[in-house]
């Protein structure tokens, strides 16, 4: 049933564009980064300010449309079909840094790159606690947690939310902070409830952070077993300010890499790295003293819109059978995964800030592969699931997954609802 969109009304109420399926720009706006999610909404409202969002929300309520929100398309989003209005908030991208309060207030469509740039411009020595990829949107990534390269030193993105502006389903604009609507603040920081409205801005606390020692050591893929074994063995000795991950990459060239960021004294991080350097010569060594704002470049996940299949798991240990299964999954013959990332998250999940990942395990595992076409995504997912099952059979996994890592539709959408 195609509902009439009453677009003239909406267009009249909006300062930004309102796009119907036949309009130019509709196709460009409807798809996000994850190509599995193809929105076909009745109309797209390209919001230019909070009043446009209010107008869209009220219009949806009046004409009984579902409401979907897309900022940058990186978070989990519900597919918006013909019964939906899609609000594109990517235009709400103003960043204001308050150096005295040590906060940044950002529009609902802002990417972390803009926040970092603003923090850098302020030259205050303050850094934003961003997820690993800085091109993703602030709102979506923060609501699912936001696990970045400073996580073990400072926690996750959501731990730093100190305020927000929301448009409630009835069109009211509500400002949340540590003194007002605090229950909603806790919800946004990971209380587990879906955001009760459309987030049009977030205020996040910045942290004082000197330059970090961060980068990547690459080894040839034949060393995958040994690198993983060595990494797993040393987790207990990892300095608390060091956040690290292992990446198995199908290439070309196939390789295994250890990425890390040490947020404490550079000498301490370098000492930890030097032990790796003594062990074996890396084919590429990109560790350097960097500004925290540049950490988004630490990893080279695809940044173009892509058809991605992923699965995640919590790992209890990196035993030989787990390592074999992982190495085979990326580097074996006809391997199902293009990339596996194993993040060391122990200590990153702060107590008392709402539920984190459901298990206190040390390692978060993400298997990913890009399918050549959208149609091939289910098959790619099926093969990843087989890898996952093999891992479960080793007894080394624990239950639970992490929404910020897994973009499986339906599995985690409800928690964040319309704030992708």
């Amino acid at each position, binding site marked *: 049933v195609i509902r009439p969109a009453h677009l003239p009304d909406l267009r009249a109420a909006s300062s930004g564009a309102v796009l119907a399926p036949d309009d130019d720009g509709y196709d460009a706006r409807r798809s996000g980064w994850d190509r599995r999610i193809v929105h076909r909404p009745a109309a797209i409202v390209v919001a230019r300010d909070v009043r446009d969002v209010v107008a869209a929300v009220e219009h949806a309520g009046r004409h009984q449309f579902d409401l979907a929100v897309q900022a940058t398309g990186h978070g989990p989003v519900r597919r918006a079909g013909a019964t939906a209005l899609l609000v594109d908030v990517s235009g709400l991208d103003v960043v204001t840094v308050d150096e005295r309060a040590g906060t940044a207030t950002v529009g609902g469509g802002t990417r972390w790159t803009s926040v970092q740039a603003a923090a850098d411009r302020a030259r205050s020595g303050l850094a934003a606690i961003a997820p690993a990829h800085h091109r993703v949107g602030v709102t979506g990534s923060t609501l699912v947690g936001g696990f970045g390269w400073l996580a073990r030193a400072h926690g996750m993105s959501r731990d730093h939310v100190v305020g927000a502006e929301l448009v409630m389903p009835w069109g009211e604009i509500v400002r949340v902070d540590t003194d007002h609507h605090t229950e909603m603040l806790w919800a946004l920081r990971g209380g587990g409830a879906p955001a009760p409205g459309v987030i049009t801005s977030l205020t996040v606390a910045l942290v004082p952070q000197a330059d970090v020692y961060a980068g990547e050591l690459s080894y*040839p*893929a*034949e*060393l995958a*077993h*040994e*690198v*993983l*074994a*060595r990494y*797993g*063995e040393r987790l207990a000795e990892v300095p608390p300010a060091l956040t690290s991950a292992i990446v198995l990459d199908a290439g070309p060239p*196939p390789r295994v890499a250890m990425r890390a960021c040490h947020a404490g004294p550079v000498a301490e991080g370098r000492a930890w790295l030097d*032990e790796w350097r*003594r*062990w*074996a*010569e890396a084919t590429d060594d990109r560790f350097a003293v960097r500004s925290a704002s540049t950490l988004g470049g630490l990893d080279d996940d695809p940044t173009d819109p892509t058809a991605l299949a992923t699965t995640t798991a919590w790992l*209890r240990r990196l035993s*030989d059978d787990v*390592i*074999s299964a992982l*190495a*085979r999954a990326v*580097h*074996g*013959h006809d*391997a199902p995964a293009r990339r596996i990332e194993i993040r060391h998250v122990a200590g990153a999940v702060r107590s008392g800030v709402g539920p984190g990942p459901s298990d*206190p395990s040390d390692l978060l595992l993400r298997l990913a592969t890009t399918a050549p076409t959208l149609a091939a995504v289910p098959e790619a997912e099926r093969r990843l699931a087989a890898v996952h099952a093999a891992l479960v059979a*080793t*007894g080394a996994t624990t239950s639970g997954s992490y929404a910020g890592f897994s973009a499986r539709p339906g599995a985690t959408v409800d928690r964040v609802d319309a704030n992708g």
Partner: protein
Amino acid sequence: VRDISGTEVRFALLGSIEVRDSTGVVVDLGGAQPRKVLGVLLAADGRVVATETLIDAVWGESPPATAPGTLQTYVSRLRRVLEPGRRPRGTSEVLVTEPHGYRLVIEPESVDVKRFEILADAGRDSAAEGRLVDAATALRQAEALWRGPALAEHRDEEWAQGLAARLEERRLAVQELRMEVDLAMGRVAEVAAEATAAVRAEPLREGRWALLALALYRSGRQGEALRALAQARRTLGDELGLEPGKALRDLEADILAQAPHLDATGPAETSDAPAPPPVRPPAPAGPTVVGRVGEMESLRGALVEARSATRFVVVEGEPGIGKTCLLEAIAVEAAAGGALVMWGRTHESGAAPAYWPWLGAMRTLVGHRPELSDALEPLLDPAVVAGPVGEAGPAGFRLHEAVAGALEAAAAHAPVVVLLDDLQWADAATLDLITFLTTRLVDAPALIGVTLRTLELGRSDAVTTALSSIARRPGSRRLRLRGLDDADAAELAAVAAGRPLTPAVAAAVHARSSGNPFFSGELVRLLAEEGLLDDAQAVADAPVPAGVGDVLRRRLDHLPDDTVEVLRVAAVLGRDIEVRLVAAAADCTVEECLDALEPAVTLRLVTDAPEPPAFGRFAHALVREVLVEDMTTPKRARLHLRAADALLATGDPDDAAELVAEHLWAAVPLGVGARAADALERAAEVAVRRAAFATAEDLLTRALTLRRAAGNSPDATGLELTTLMTLTGVTRSLHGFNAVLPLLDRGKELAVRLGDDDLLLNLDWAEWSAAATACDFPRADPIAERFRTMAEQAAPDDVVELTLGHGVWGIHSWHHGRIDEAVAHLDRSRAAAVNLPAAHMVLGMVAEQRMLTELFSVFVHDLAGDLDEVGLAYERLVQSQDDRVALAMVAGLETAAAMVVGDMPRAIRASGDGLAADPDDAFGFSGTLNQMYAASAALAGGGDPDAAIAMFEEGHVRYQRSRNRTGLGSAYATMAIELTRAGALDRAKGYLTRAQDELRTRGERWPEPVILLAEAELQSAEGGSVPVIRELLERARDVAAQQGSHAIARRMERALHALGGR
């Protein structure tokens, strides 16, 4: 130089004849004739020389008439020279006139001949007394007196011949004795060099050949030593038509056998003479390492660290890249620093005998530290296994522990360096041992280095597991060797060519070989052999083979056919070339074999062996691989067959067993299946003795294939059955009871065909124990019935049938929750077992049942609650078992019993005992069951629920991997109880459900009361109603009482009593 007599030498015959005055100046004797006269007089050594004799010496047979007068003139001239202070015409006191002639009266020691003899005698005596330094000093002084051939220009004259010959002989003897002394003092390199020259000078003196061979052997150049002896044999044969003497023949045999006495050095120095400069063998020249500066630095770093902690090093790269060379270089430095270096090399003939590299390394160790030979006996000289084969884990553990302990003991004296070459060909047992050592050796000053060829991408097996365990070690190093850069490669090419190359040629070689040192060396040699080395254009234009294999093929083409043929035989046998073995396999004499190999040595396709008894090695594994690859399959099979025969004729039976088996296996197409099967079984037996169960399983599986193919005759069936039963034992050791079930069906079929009742009984027992352990009661119970019937019908003195029958039925009854019946039958089984002959170990079944009977009877009595002193009963069991598996099992049963009867302090203590008996989680069945109970015990002791659950689940995964189920119900239930008490109710509920499911689906009933108790406790913790809880407890009590588990029933009474207070 010490002066023996205080007299100066004035008269010298050792060379041309000379006289010195008191100031040491050579005096003019007035011409050749007076010199000859003096010579004759000196040669007479103080005796009177007749005038005629002198005249004959000077003028020969037809002297002129003036001769006597002229002689007088000469004498006068001599007197003036010899006695410059003599008054004219005074009586001469030196050249004295006698009635018929003349005589020299001088101090004997003033003649160099006398001096030489005194020194030679002194040197000989000192040597005989073991005063080597004195001996060497005296002998050297004696030799130093010689200025040339004795009596020089006169030595062929009649009067001089005898003396000159005698002196020369003596000189040669002195030289040989002195070399012998030097050799005893460890100057092997100098002696080797000197003896090489010495045999050239006097090729017929066997003593120096012996010295040369011995010096070479002690320098680690066994191949050259054998070649030297072969050359001696040829020389003696060609020149004299003689065989070498016994001494040389013995030496040759000893070198081949690597007789220990060849290494014996001389007796300790006892001289109090001033110490000579310390005798130190010069640092042995290491291999030429070009480039590799960073890699050597890294290895040196590891070596330094290895003085205070164990370090592991992996060197990886493509074939020929220089891995072994690098380790050899560091080995030389380590040895120079006082470390004990031992090499282990994987066998490269395609066969991988268990622990092969370790055998080599540990034999070197025992050679240096004989006191460790007892500790290493399980590896080097494993005893025959009597009776049942134990669990694989503990047996392997014992052996691994022995090696670790020996390395630690040796490292306490000096750092040890173990280098294992070509890990990619290592057998599984060797890799397991490496993995073990990475966790076992921590502080021992030891460096363990391995080389391996670059892994294939995605590979995942025992090699990667071992490498991963090395990677886990702190301080370990991982070196990947790549091709050398232009400059280094050019230098290396120049070394191979023996001279600098033009830049264009060097660049061409580098481009072709990508800086692979072995490839470029071979390429340079090939070009040199083909005369292309100086022509850059020719190098560029010539159809130079693209791959190293083709380069080697072309170099092999330059060899005589005989040589290639012998090389092929050697290649099939492996990388090390043992001449006796190769000769036997090639069907030629050792002599012919050495001759045939000589050209390959000249072309450097074969080099000296690093250790005896090998004669040499293929210069590189690739040489061997090319030789083997280029043979047709039938040809290869024939050579394998000959290799097997040669090994059987010459080898150590234990070491050779697996090699023989592999060679025969490769020769099966020639119709030697039966022999191959026999050999595989024999090899499996050796492997089991070394606790290399995985190897044994592989060998026996192949033997079984061959047996099956042999047909259905009664003989063939019998052989197949024997193989099958052995395999059953090994498989059970390796994978647990249940893994053997697929083998048993075939076994029964064969036993029925043969009508072998004993065997059927054995198979039944194996099947029952497997099925019962898996709680597969539909399969287990009918068999148990048959055993009960057997026990009931057994004659009173048939202790075997009584032990087995009642034992099986007793354990069967326990599974099904009939504890009273279990007690009765196990008591009868035990009573019968007391009278079992100790040697009765038929295929292990009876012995195993005896052990189970002893353990289970205490266990069921514990459940029944009728033991007077529970602790004592288990203590007696512990005393009677010396096997750690049995100890783990005793502890496991006591933990289970204490846990279900509610005696927590005892459960905690016993569970600790169980874990202590198996600290490395090596024991499949008993170990994992213990681990699950230990999780409950940890909870009872106040442990953290998450940690306990993790521990339990880890054990659970391992337990189920071998398809074991028995005891799970009780393990789940006790876990549920302890989790409930720890307040983790949700988790407890999960375990209770699993326990109930287990009871319902599997039907193992003895844990039933405890499962009811778990339910009651959980209800109680959740605030359930008292009547419901009471009813559960009453049911638990009644079930326990009805089963005969009175100890459990009493626990329920206590719980009811406590409940009554609510």
